[in-house]
């Protein structure tokens, strides 16, 4: 036992209450899915499970193979017949009809359980004091962690609300997994928020990431399309591709991160982040930091580790992207700050240079590549790269201060501006994706053999005529992302830039401001499409109550924070002070 403080169960549990609650929620949700009765209307909702049985029971290998591989089952009479009967309802559905939903299914209620669980956890987080230390200091429950936890819980809540209609519509029997995966990813994020141990950091990082790989590849089946007899309906191509790209780049980056962490561990012999400060400066240390930076670069989507972003955003289910595009990035950056500032603060001079390079690359690449995009999801992906680049200005200010190149106040304002930036970025970014989901989510699945590209700016054209509310919500979010004065995004950008300026990075601020002009252009293009574009369709868009609520929450939060940023500013400043011990 190397921990300085004796192991205290109660204290540990208290400090870890939020991740624990989330893990328990996931388990409860799974149990609920198992325990609750079968679907009331399974017969007319799609193909029967193979062999006419429920999917959850144990399968024979043959069935598993045919089930998994989409191949014709072995030519035994029963299995073959089952396969054909499984296909029959598909063929009966006309091509243009939306995928059938399951009216009255209790599965649609799973989302409400998840929402309830998240609300309880959020309430707990807001009410419980944040001053705990878990198991020898591997995890700290302080104001910094609490701030981030509140943020990701809110993001999770929005994600579940946004996912519900999509799941009911497209994922019939596979809904519970979605929410369990969101909850376990959140569990990883909340752990990451306070992890002060390299090992826990690595595990939490993966716990956050692995469910996202699955969520991004959650493909709906192409119902209603003719397919060869004896084969099963194909899943959509785009999510599979999105998931593959996310996964492969992510797995390689995870290996890179772990390699870097192994080097950092090797130089101190302790897994505690704080002990990194003991490591004498050496090339190996610098190398370890470079590997960690590169690995986190993937999660944050910094150039040149960003290539997966637009493709994955485009292909993955839109509500998943709404979640994927903010919370993991925020927590990835928080974890990076933890390692860089808490552990390697004294060596800030070493990592500052590479970090500045990453910031400039992200700012330039993100903004330039976003300009020609016609697909809104890709546009948001690239612009997200640029936003992360802006956030790195805050880290740079922090680093300059830690390295002694800037006044100590720059550290607080750098970190606080970063935290505030998260809070500003979260609802705006989520809101745009949810509006898109409201617009294109209910459309029937496209032909699996053609890449479907519905999420274009053209599909937004004339949105304010089809649904003024949605258009207004999207406008609020987009203006905030663009950093139009007096949207919250403006305050966030201003603060981060002021912090960087104070830390002596005037040139960086100038670069950021210059490329931000491009941001103004492409974000306003979205607004122009909605308000000035000629609508090709005139049917009104109705997002439905749940999704509508989520969108309204996003827009209201964005607008509200823009009008009244003071409480958030103070909150972020307090969290930053606690983190820096000032």
């Amino acid at each position, binding site marked *: *036992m190397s921990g300085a403080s004796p192991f205290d169960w109660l204290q540990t549990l208290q400090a870890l209450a939020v991740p624990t609650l989330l893990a328990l929620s996931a388990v409860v949700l799974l149990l609920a899915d198992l325990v609750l009765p079968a679907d009331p209307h399974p017969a007319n909702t799609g193909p029967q499970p193979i062999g006419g049985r429920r999917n959850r029971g144990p399968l024979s290998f043959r069935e598993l193979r045919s089930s998994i591989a989409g191949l014709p089952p072995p030519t035994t009479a029963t299995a073959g017949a089952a396969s054909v009967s499984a296909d029959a309802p598909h063929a009966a559905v006309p091509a243009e009809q939306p995928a059938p939903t399951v009216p009255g299914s209790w599965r649609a209620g799973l989302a409400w359980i998840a929402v309830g669980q998240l609300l309880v956890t959020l309430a707990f987080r807001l009410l419980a004091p944040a001053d705990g230390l878990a198991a020898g200091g591997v995890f700290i429950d302080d104001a910094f962690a609490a701030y981030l936890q509140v943020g990701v819980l809110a993001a999770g809540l929005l994600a579940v609300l946004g996912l519900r209609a999509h799941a009911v519509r497209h994922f019939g029997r596979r809904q519970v*997994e979605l929410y369990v995966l969101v909850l376990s990813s959140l569990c990883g994020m909340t752990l990451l928020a306070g992890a002060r141990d390299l090992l*826990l950091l690595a595990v939490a990082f*993966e716990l956050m990431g692995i469910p996202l790989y699955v969520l991004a590849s959650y493909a709906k089946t192409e119902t209603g399309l003719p397919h060869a007899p004896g084969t099963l*309906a194909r899943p959509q191509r785009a999510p599979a591709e999105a998931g593959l790209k996310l996964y492969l780049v992510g797995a390689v980056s995870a290996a890179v991160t772990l390699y870097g962490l192994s080097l950092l561990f090797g130089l101190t012999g302790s897994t505690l982040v704080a002990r990194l400060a003991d490591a004498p400066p050496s090339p190996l240390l610098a190398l370890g930091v470079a590997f960690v930076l590169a690995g986190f670069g993937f999660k944050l989507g910094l150039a040149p580790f960003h290539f997966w972003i637009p493709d994955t955003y485009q292909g993955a289910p839109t509500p998943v992207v709404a979640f994927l595009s903010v919370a993991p990035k925020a927590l990835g950056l928080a974890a990076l700050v933890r390692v860089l500032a808490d552990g390697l603060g004294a060596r800030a001079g070493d990592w500052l240079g590479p970090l500045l390079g990453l910031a400039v690359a992200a700012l330039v690449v993100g903004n330039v590549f976003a300009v020609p995009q016609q697909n809104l999801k890709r546009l948001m992906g690239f612009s997200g790269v640029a936003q992360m680049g802006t956030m790195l200005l805050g880290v740079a200010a922090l680093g300059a201060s830690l390295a002694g190149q800037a006044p100590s106040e720059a550290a607080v304002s750098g970190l606080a501006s970063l935290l505030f930036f998260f809070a500003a970025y979260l609802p705006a970014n989520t809101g745009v994706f949810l509006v898109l989901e409201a617009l294109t989510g209910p459309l029937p699945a496209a032909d699996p053999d053609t890449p479907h590209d519905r999420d274009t700016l053209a599909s937004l054209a004339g949105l304010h005529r089809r649904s003024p509310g949605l258009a207004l919500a999207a406008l609020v979010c987009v203006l905030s992302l663009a950093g139009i004065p007096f949207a919250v995004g403006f305050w966030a950008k201003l603060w981060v830039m002021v912090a960087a300026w104070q830390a002596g990075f005037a040139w960086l601020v100038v670069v950021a401001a210059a490329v931000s002009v491009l941001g103004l252009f492409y974000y306003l293009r979205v607004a122009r499409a909605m308000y000035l574009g000629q609508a090709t369709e005139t049917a009104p868009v109705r997002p439905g109550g749940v999704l509508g609520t989520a969108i309204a929450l996003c827009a209201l939060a964005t607008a509200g924070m823009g009008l009244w940023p003071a409480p958030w500013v103070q909150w972020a400043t307090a969290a930053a002070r606690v983190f820096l011990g000032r």
Partner: protein
Amino acid sequence: MAQLAFGLVAAAMLGSGLLAVRSRNLVHAVLWLAVSLIATAAAYVLLSAPFLAAMQILLYTGGVVTLMLFGVMLTDHRHDGGAPGRLSNDSAPQRPWLGAFFAAALFGVVAAALYQTPLPVPAAALDASTARLGELVLGDHLVAFEAISVLLLAALLGAVALARKTDP
């Protein structure tokens, strides 16, 4: 003696590793990976990490390699240019010079950094009893241990949800 053992293990790991990334036949590649992993288990024994070695064989060789073989079998390669029922040759390396350049450059940087960093010679013995390791895992790293159980649950669930026939 230690040097000889190291040499043997290193040769086995690198040789089989090279074959695992170069082999044209995918099944062979996976099997060479298994050899490399077993050689690593031997390395763990040399590094006085017997429990780790056991886990390496159980989890990696027993679990990962088997999973991969399942994967190879479950995905037929007819559409990738191979004959029906046979594994395709599509796993042959492409753009080998690019890969070799980056691999060599990366190795060079790491090696250079390694040689510029003074590291002490380790003490002769390390008491790596399984009991102490277990104490550590369930003590200092208990939080991570619990987290990884959630992770395994989520991964399992996710893997099944993806691989299972998708239904509406």
